[in-house]
């Protein structure tokens, strides 16, 4: 019984990590492929300037780089907080 519930706890822990990892990977993929597809399909839009010197393309490119930071940061926040707490609980339950 004891072993079973511990096994379930680890399974839940593993599932939560893969879920978060997959969601964030998909988010990065969507942001990046979205950018690339705009570059490929809608060059005029990307060339449009918001203010003289700043085209939509440059803005979006910089935003994708910022998105990479933000998504990694979100993962670190989640992992250092919730995930590590659950992991400690699991370890202590040993």
């Amino acid at each position: 019984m004891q072993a079973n519930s511990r096994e379930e706890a680890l399974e839940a822990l593993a599932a939560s990590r893969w879920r978060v990892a997959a969601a964030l990977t998909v988010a990065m993929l969507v942001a990046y492929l979205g950018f690339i597809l705009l570059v490929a399909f809608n060059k005029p839009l990307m060339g449009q300037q918001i203010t003289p010197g700043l085209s939509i393309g440059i803005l979006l490119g910089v935003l994708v780089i910022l998105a990479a930071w933000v998504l990694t940061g979100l993962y670190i926040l989640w992992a250092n907080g919730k995930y590590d707490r659950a992991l400690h609980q699991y370890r202590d339950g040993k």
Partner: protein
Amino acid sequence: MNPTTPLGTQLGQPNTTAIIFFLLFVGITLAITYWAARKTKTTSEFFAAGGGVSAAQNGFALAGDFMSAASFLGIAGLVALSGFDGLIYSVGWLVGWPVVTFLIAEPLRNLGKYTFADVVAYRLKQTPVRLSAAFGTLAVVSFYLIAQMVGAGNLIHLLFGLSYETAVVIVGAVMILYVLFGGMIATTWVQIVKAVLLLAGATALALAVLYKFGFSPVALFNEAATQYGAETLAPGKLVSSPLEAISLGLALMFGTAGLPHILMRFYTVPDAKAARSSVFYATGLIGYFYLVTFILGFGASVLVGRAAITGVDKGGNMAAPMLAEVVGGTGFLGFISAVAFATILAVVAGLTLSGAAALSHDLWSTVVRKGKAPESEQLKVARIASLALGILAIILGVIFKGQNVAFMVGLAFAIAASGNFPALLLSMAWKNFTTRGAVACMLTGTFTAVVLIFLSPTVQVDLLHNAAAPFPLKNPGIITIPLAFVVGVVVSLLFPEREAAERFAEVRHRMHVGAPTPSLPAPEAPVSTPPAVVRPSKA
């Protein structure tokens, strides 16, 4: 070769400042190597710096491994000559890093010891998996190494006026010293010193440029648009077809998560948490670096001028050094040139070390000696492998002189993304992955990537000057990455392996909770599995 004086640049002339800075860098890093050599007595110290590198240090070292001279000089040049298109590359090269953080870094640290093959082979049969993984690793390392060495020879020839062969021999010899004597400890510190110098140099150069535009990047872009037309700020010819774009994008994104010299860095930190944080630092540093490089490219096109840049080097690789000369004089040119030289050294050292790990740890210790090689023998083989790879790098660098090897970086990423990444991910995430599945997955990915690149326009049209190519895409990622996954899954389902599935519980435990003590991974004799999880395999 280049009529440098009429163009008013000191490029290609022996530059005293550059030589002094370069000698200073080599002197300091060799002193580090001497210090590291005395601390490098075990294989763990040689391959993984004894696991004693902090998250921040490893973040800088990861960034150092990734920020090659090609991405510094190449992207600056691409932006200088074609504007916006350079940003597409910067973005592509960065987006692989978050994926490494989410999917790879922590499980890899918990499951492996020195190479990514440790992880794939953990619950599978050692010999076939190690052989295939070493094959993939050596393929990636060789192609990446050739591209770096040939690039190094050309760049140093242009920057310092040294002969191509001399440059290749200097890079090879100094790199051998780092790896042979200092192992991962020295290589890590060389990367850190190089990353700091490169970031500082690029930042100083960008500030000097922005100073002229009231610290407004937008004013700089606007000036570029005034000089070269508004299309500078819009996508140009780089991305011609959407399929091509996605294919290249996938290879760049997942290739980072399959580069052996990057994966190896995660074993240098004490635990999974440090591995996680180190990629966060690396992502920040690399993203910042690419944004700065973008400014440098536009700065060069406005302040140096496209005609002057292509006058020195058609590929635009000298844009950043020329910009340094324009804004800071010969001294600054010397500094940036020395940093570019140092950059190549450091990247080549990291690659060689990961190749040596595959040869010594995967092939010799595990396959040939079945894990029975004593520590001293493993270390000796590792050193011989480093020396051999270093010499091979010099020879290949000389052989490929004057060849257009740019496609080899794409090839290295394609193999890493299709040969290494799918097997790595499946082995960590999928219970029913088997030995045959892993071998089929890795070999399919590696071979199809090589064959399709050979049949692609990059090789057939650009290199061999044929009229058309049998395979239409320049990068095969969109075909080879899914294919490797499908082959891995199908072969695993066709040939189930009970033991591998049963040991998945152990893998999962270790992947999340970590090793009980920093001890051996992938034991030949399986650690006993908790009874509750021995379920009949569903496959």
